[in-house]
């Protein structure tokens, strides 16, 4: 019995030593870099087909005809819209790696787009003599909220921004920055809701419509709905090819997808 016992113990020790040795050798072996699992069908084609800028009539349709984002049943259930059942939409949000965040991203090939629009982001510039006192006060409060947002205080920014839409509910910029604050606070669905309102109040302000679509893309991306994000970024660029948020995000998405295609 004892012999058996001793030899059993020796065998176990030998087995363990073998496992440790194998593990050591494995760890020293050159490794292939880690790649995130890639869906069989990419969400972003490496070279998107050039898209023409939207026609004025197309702008009037809101949201995009190809945007399947909101459907009646989604509204009724108050749930975020469900994405088309493709594998890519189920992919969780991919955090940019350290390498990605440090190296400049190679600009993605751009479709033939309209020239960049002049910067129309100054809200104070919109306070002209003809502007109503409500709108003027509302714009100043929006500006204050924007300043707090830029200072990294989205929670604080909510108060002046909510006041801005209370004074003037037709102020689309107040709604836009509320959407931005909600996005920063990680409330992506609320952000999308505010963007819907902002868009409905913007009319033909292409610069701002592009901002709305770009932020919408950011929300979709954060929600892991990459196809919708791509559509939104793309539309933002068609409205204003100078929209940096959309351009950078698209480029990032394309660079994320690049290794998988090899």
């Amino acid at each position: 019995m004892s012999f058996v016992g001793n030899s059993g113990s020796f065998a176990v020790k030998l087995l363990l030593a073998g496992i440790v040795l194998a593990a050591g050798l494995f760890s020293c072996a050159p490794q292939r870099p880690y790649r995130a699992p890639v869906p069989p069908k990419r969400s972003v084609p490496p070279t998107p087909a050039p898209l023409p800028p939207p026609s004025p009539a197309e702008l009037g349709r809101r949201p995009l005809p190809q945007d399947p984002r909101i459907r009646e049943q989604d509204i009724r259930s108050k749930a975020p819209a469900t994405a088309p059942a493709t594998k890519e939409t189920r992919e969780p949000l991919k955090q940019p790696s350290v390498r990605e965040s440090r190296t400049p991203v190679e600009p993605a090939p751009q479709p033939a787009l309209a020239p960049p629009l002049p910067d129309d982001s100054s809200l104070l510039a919109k306070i002209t003599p003809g502007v109503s006192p409500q709108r003027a006060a509302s714009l100043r409060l929006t500006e204050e909220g924007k300043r707090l947002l830029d200072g990294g205080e989205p929670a604080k920014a909510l108060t002046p921004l909510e006041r801005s839409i209370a004074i003037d509910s037709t102020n689309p910029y107040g709604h836009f920055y509320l959407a931005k604050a909600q996005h920063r606070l990680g409330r992506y669905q609320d952000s999308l809701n505010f963007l819907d309102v902002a868009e409905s109040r913007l009319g033909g302000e292409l610069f701002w419509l592009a901002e709305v679509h770009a932020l919408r893309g950011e929300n979709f991306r954060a929600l892991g709905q990459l196809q919708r994000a791509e559509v939104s970024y793309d539309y933002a660029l068609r409205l204003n090819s100078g929209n940096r948020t959309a351009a950078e995000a698209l480029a990032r998405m394309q660079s994320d997808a690049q290794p998988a295609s090899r």
Partner: protein
Amino acid sequence: MKRAKLRVFSISLIVLLVVTTSGLVFGAWFIKKWEQQVTEKFDGQKWRIPSRIYSDSYLLYVGINLKREDLLEKLRRLGYYSVQTTPKSKGEYRFAPAEGLIDIWLHDFDYPNEKVKGYPVRISLESAVVTRIENAATGKEMFSLELEPELVTGLYERIWQERRVVKLAEVPPLLVKAVLAVEDERFYNHHGVDPIGILRAMWVNLRSLSFQQGGSTLTQQLMKNFLLTDERTLARKIPEAVMALIAERKYSKDVILENYLNEIYLGQRGSQGIFGVWEASQFYFSKPLADLTVGESALLAGLIRAPNRLSPYRSAEAATKRRDTVLAKMLEGNIISRKQYDAAVREKLPQRSLVKVTNEAPFYVDYLRRELEQVYSNDVLTEEGLRIFTSLDLQLQRMAERALTEGLKKLEATHAALRKKSAADSLEAAIIALRPQTGEIKAMVGGRNYQKSQFNRVFQAKRQPGSIFKPFVYLAALMYGGQSGIQYTPDTVIDDSQFIWSYEGQEWQPSNYNNEYFGAVTFRRALESSLNSATGRVAQDVGIRRVRDLAHRMGIQSPLPAVPSLSLGSAEVTPLEVAVAFSTLANNGVRTRPLAVKQVMDQSAKVLEKRDVRVEQVVAPQLANAMNQLLKGVLDHGTAASARRLGFTRPAAGKTGTTNDYKDAWFVGYTPDLLAVVWVGFDGQSKLNLSGSEAALPIWAEFMKAATANMAATDFVGPPMPPGESEGKCGPAGREGEVGGEPCAPATVPARAPAETL
């Protein structure tokens, strides 16, 4: 004989021993018990600090219409007091009508996320418009100014003790010395009980043959306030003295003094007791402790003896006399110099009227308390001094209260049948006002008399809405079109004649008011005139399930059975639900969640939660605007046209509602900036025999006239048309009509056809 004496002596000795021993045992037991009480009080939670509920703050901006009287009243309610010269300290204001100026030195206020130190501001007015706001200290122009929220009420169990606890180091030494000078000169020289003080008090009282002085030390007073009653008996004095000795043995003089300064009662504002020196400084002088002058410190110290009798609010003369006595004591004790004394006695007491905090929005407070109780326990709400910021506009609340009370009185005066049916069944009403853009509930009156009935009819009473449900039918028609293929527009002709709707083996036949039928009518006319038969036909064509789903989508949460009578408002809903649903229209199709509680802060000014504005575009803006234009017609020439005769002339949309059996009268109406719902009826379901336009509309009109008096008159603005899009375009996919599809209704409703003959 000798033996008998010995026996008596022995028995007496035994009795004495027994008595002494039991006395010692009982005494020790009592001392132990009192020690435990003292320790528990000092080391545990000393004070129950009620939560405070605040109204919304008041925002002024350049260009706002402002009724001066309203602003001055607001300042008065916030505890500001009028002075003749330029304000020199916090809490003062000056109104100079000739110059069109209002100078205010703002109070300090701890807003959520921000502590604001008071500063002087100057507001320039031209007639009723604010033309300039500037920081009077720096001369810098400001574009908006926030006046702090008003305290609405406290949440407390039995008594409302208003108190902010401060450290001894935060109390100015001069105030501490003044308190000690008048209450316990030998505080640092005794051990809780002061025999010398007692003898001196007895001597003073004997000499004057009246009660002039008490011999209690400050520690004894604290023990009395902490643990005992106010009765002047030996049975209370003994434990007080023993507890004072225990406290002095266990705790330092500074700890005792700090507790005393926070505990002491110093006045009354209505139901609100003012406790502690910090709260008293705010109450009497609107100042932080650090800013108190010598005279003000002396006045506070002097108040301890009889806070109400010596209050400057009650008698400036008595308060001044007492203050001067304290100042004399301070001079005598070398606490202040002669120069300081002379300056202090010359200080004039501010002439201020006492603004009592009376809960002017009890129904609103009940509503938000229910909301808060889902998150915080009752103990937390009543003891931990939370600060709760709400959407309440107290000015609108007062207007709503007044409109409701006077409106009901008028109805009872003109309709004898409405006068009290029984003790339990008197005419009741409810009103709720909210801001459609944000969902903020600005005012809520849940009944006629809160003292008699706390039943809040705004969110607890489910009643049939009657015709105010019809807009959901018409909106569904514009949105989806009919199953027959009809694409409804405001000018679509509908048959308003009797018909029978067969469903699930049953039949339903709507009948018009007075059994009057109009034959061919336009869609617009059918809505404006609230024609039941025409509405029934539209609902049948659209599909009652679609109507039901749309009502839910817009904010009705009560179950709605998909039966034909739903189209005429047979399913019971609350006024709150109606308000939310119609605010979706007022806000161009964006539904907001009703918001009463905005932020909650704890005692250390940490924000515990913030309830944000939440929006959701649930109806295409073009459709919502089309409905607004149609519902404007209800006020301009429909069933609510009497609103114009009642003097409400602003652009507004609305709908009357009367139930079939005349038990409920409703009116929901809104401008782009404010929406109000009024319900009138009996709790016991007795008949009103009045329509919505007769019973509810006059109350609504009175409220809205007052509430919008200072607002700029704005009209409904539809969504801006994108370039290239022509008005009224209705795409092929427009049958969907909801958000995400194309609008099928015109963005703006064309004016009434002049030749419309119906």
